[in-house]
């Protein structure tokens, strides 16, 4: 049964974001604020970088504010101003990515002014932007969200998000895949990755894909087939999942933007589950200078060494 989700708090959240952005731009706390603004299509929203006080009134927060804006703060994205302190509008899920990036020395807390969003959820990728937010149209990641009210921000509007209990989908789908035989699982991922067109939208929106040059773009020598064919497609998605293991904060942007509907977040959630079991590590809750795959302790599981 489709449950309606109450998004009435977003109007007050929008006002609060505008006021705060205007305040921090006027008093010079920040040089720019990265947030969301309304776009042409009914109900749609898009990222915006606001550096003039009068433009603070353009900021909004609605169920169509789906992006993880942390991507604009990584060094691979050079166009966003880096001078001074930067304000950024963050949902709880996005904040986990920022925490991870701080741990990897890509950002420092002092350079950021975090405007946290009390969030009841945002829309899934394939629906029209003016769709009402319900238990059906909500983004899959929001079904298992544990960060409706981001912690540790410089400013959070006073609204309290009230969210209904929703059926979890990733956990169920991972359990279904784990129950398959390796051959069945391989065939599932081969079919999914056969759709990949190597547009690299998954990489480009990922806050953790901040390498100046991606291994998969190298051609002297070529490390991974760059053409969208089965061998290179599977290699690309496995390489990416391995590089994100223990780092991916679960914003699910890769899956949201995939034009071919490849369920990429399943790979990342599965890796996160492995990391939790093997190293009792979860990405995105506190700033860790060393991730589990970048350190060694004698307590690490060594049962795989035969």
């Amino acid at each position, binding site marked *: 049964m489709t449950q309606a989700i109450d998004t009435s708090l977003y109007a007050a959240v929008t006002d609060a974001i505008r006021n705060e952005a205007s305040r921090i731009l006027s008093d010079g706390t920040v040089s720019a604020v990265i947030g969301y603004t309304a776009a042409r299509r009914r109900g749609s929203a898009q990222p915006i970088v606001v550096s003039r006080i009068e433009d603070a009134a353009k900021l909004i927060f609605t169920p169509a504010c789906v992006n993880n804006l942390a991507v604009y703060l990584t060094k691979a994205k050079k166009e966003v101003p880096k001078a001074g302190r930067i304000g950024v509008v963050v949902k709880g899920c996005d904040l986990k990515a920022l925490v991870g990036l701080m741990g990897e020395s890509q950002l420092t807390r002092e350079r950021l002014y975090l405007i946290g969003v009390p969030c009841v959820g945002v829309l899934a990728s394939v629906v029209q932007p003016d769709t009402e937010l319900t238990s059906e149209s909500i983004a899959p990641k929001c079904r298992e969200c544990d960060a409706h009210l981001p912690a540790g921000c410089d400013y959070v509007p006073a609204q309290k998000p009230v969210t209904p209990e929703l059926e979890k989908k990733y956990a169920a789908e991972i359990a279904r895949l784990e129950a398959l035989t390796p051959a069945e699982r391989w065939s599932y991922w081969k079919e999914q990755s056969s759709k990949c067109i190597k547009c*690299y939208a998954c990489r480009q929106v990922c806050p953790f894909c901040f390498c100046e040059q991606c291994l998969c773009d190298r051609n002297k020598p070529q490390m991974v*087939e760059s053409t969208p064919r089965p061998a290179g497609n599977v290699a690309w998605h496995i390489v990416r999942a391995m590089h994100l293991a223990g780092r991916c904060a679960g914003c699910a942007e890769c899956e949201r933007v995939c034009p071919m509907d490849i369920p990429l977040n399943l790979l990342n959630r599965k890796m996160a589950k492995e990391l939790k079991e093997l190293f009792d590590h979860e990405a995105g809750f506190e700033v860790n200078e060393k991730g589990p795959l970048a350190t060694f302790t004698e307590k690490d599981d060594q049962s795989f060494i035969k």
Partner: protein
Amino acid sequence: MQKYISEQNLNALLDKLIAEGKRVVAPRLNAGTPLYEPLASAAELVIDRLPRRSGKEAFFPLCEDIMSYEKEGQRVELQDIDPVRFPETVLVGVRPCDAAAIPVLDTVFSWDYKDEFFLERRRKTTIIGLACTQADDACFCSAVGLSPGDPKGADLFLTPLEGGGYACEAFSEKGETLVGAHHELFAEPNGAKALPLAEPQTDAFDLKKVKQWLDEHFEDPSWDTIATRCVGCGACAFVCPACHCFDIVDEGTEKKGKRRKNWDACGFWKFTHHASGHNPRDQQPKRYRNRIMHKFKYYDDKFGQTLCTGCGRCIRLCPVGIDIAAILQQVEAKVE
């Protein structure tokens, strides 16, 4: 000459073509995603959804081998691909925005260099177009001079009728040949009215005004505001029916491998990365500017056509909500 074909007979036609050994490419579901792909049977046809990618890949595949090589000691053997072997194809259910892009591609693939891979597939393909009865607010074909009922690019064009079935009209010799060869499946028009066409909501652009601004504003600060948020993926170009840039790579080992032609996109950082290390489009806004310039200025300068048919796919799928129709509106508004 108008004919009528029922849904059942359309399916029978596709099954017959498949049985004759032709490649029938039409919208079907691939792991849940609608794509133009070869059908195993007409039962796979899913005609009511716009495929996620365009019809261009029937002629310009995502990736194709163009040569193979083998090397042993001093002996090097090169093997060309023989385009004559490409299969006879019928491309079915092509929306006007996709069909109209095909003659646009013909122009560029038969210009100074004749791309036999594209042209041979093109010669061997018959296109069955389909009028659109549904549009969303990303659709803007009518804003760039087309319409949901425009048969441009189609050899045979189907218009859905009230009460089921299609009005069918041939627009080329290929279309007439296809009807003639299977005349028993086509009937005389039954007088049913056509279903109302889709009504895209975007007002028509004055593309001359757009071009005028582009002609004069290669350098302009507004490119930064237009494109700062672009993350540099290739999604827009890869789902576009008219984008046609490609890369050529050799893949395999030193001893054996293939030379392959695959799609490329101007949004990518390495698209214009020179061997010297210099990159003339070193920032994302410059890359996005190229996309707009190519579609609405360069292609027009060279071939007198616009390289956009308003399918709206890039708008629906842009990870960061870049809306090409909104950008054209902004550009148009800048001209007095």
